């Protein structure tokens, strides 16, 4: 079964080119950190409220980055809120991403290709070879956003993550996005971890905008 980390990475990849859609590094970090926390929350290992993140059960879930992060949260002397943990975990985003990509290659969903550019530099691409998993995720997303049914909490979580890194534009046209924006805004508030991910990304974007405006003057 795919984790939220796996699912959001599949959505972040351009299926044919196998490269990542243009997403700011800090945004990807926060989204992957949020995805790890969502995986732990849905496995009943952690729980959250607006003030703190709590460990319910320290039993590993069988995914190495998640289990290491669960161990770090368990052994932390400090009680932190969800946003603080998202910031801490986002520093490990590179490793979280690599381990998930390896797992997606091992399960035959992606293939790993190395390409050289400018004769010297190497880059790794991950074209999709079995698109069923990604299609299923997109179907779940469209099913929720194009209806007014009460959503499944798992679908709420993946919509929060996808909207936080602005990749719903890869699922819907600009016109559709504008039309369903009220529904997206309704859904993305329903998951506390997802809300904190969006908040952290917005703060960074505002800081960048402020710095750019300041430099311009």
């Amino acid at each position, binding site marked *: 079964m795919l984790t939220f980390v796996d699912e959001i990475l599949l959505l972040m990849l351009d299926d044919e080119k196998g490269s990542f859609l243009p997403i700011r590094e800090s945004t990807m970090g926060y989204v992957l950190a949020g995805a790890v926390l969502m995986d732990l929350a849905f496995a009943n290992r952690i729980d*959250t409220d607006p003030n703190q993140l709590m460990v319910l059960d320290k039993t590993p879930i069988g995914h190495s980055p998640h289990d290491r992060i669960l161990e770090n949260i368990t052994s932390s002397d400090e009680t932190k809120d969800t946003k603080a943990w998202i910031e801490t975990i986002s520093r490990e985003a590179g490793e979280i991403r690599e381990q998930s990509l390896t797992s997606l290659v091992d399960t035959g969903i992606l293939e790993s290709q190395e390409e050289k550019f400018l004769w010297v530099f190497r880059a790794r691409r991950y074209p999709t070879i079995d698109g069923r998993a990604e299609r299923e995720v997109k179907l779940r997303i469209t099913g929720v956003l194009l209806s007014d049914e009460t*959503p*499944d909490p798992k679908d709420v979580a993946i919509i929060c993550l996808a909207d936080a890194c602005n990749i719903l534009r890869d699922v819907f046209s600009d016109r559709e996005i504008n039309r369903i924006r009220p529904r997206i805004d309704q859904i993305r508030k*329903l998951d*506390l971890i997802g809300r904190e991910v969006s908040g952290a990304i917005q703060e960074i974007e505002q800081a960048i905008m402020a710095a750019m405006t300041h430099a311009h003057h």
Partner: protein
Amino acid sequence: MMNIGEEKADSVVIVAIEGRVDGLTAPELENRISEIVDRGDAQVLLDCAGMTYVSSAGLRIFLTGARKCQQNGGNLMICSLQPDCKSVIETSGFHTVIDCHDTREAALAAAS
């Protein structure tokens, strides 16, 4: 710690929640809502007058329960939230997907 009481008013099953609804207690509430819907009662009212705390895990169960009721032709409502829990529900927008009422009477009137 959480206690669940159950009674019926016409076609509505009232589930009275007392205590904390968090990651430790939410599964019990989820099971209870499932049992009620599975036996054919899909009109459920969660009376939260005695609910002192709700975490993310608790909110997820509200959503799962509401979905299950809806899929079985019914509706899940919430009433009598204490101020702290009401604030959590409203901040997270749950009142836009689940019918919330100030009192049990108002919820039952809306259901009839």
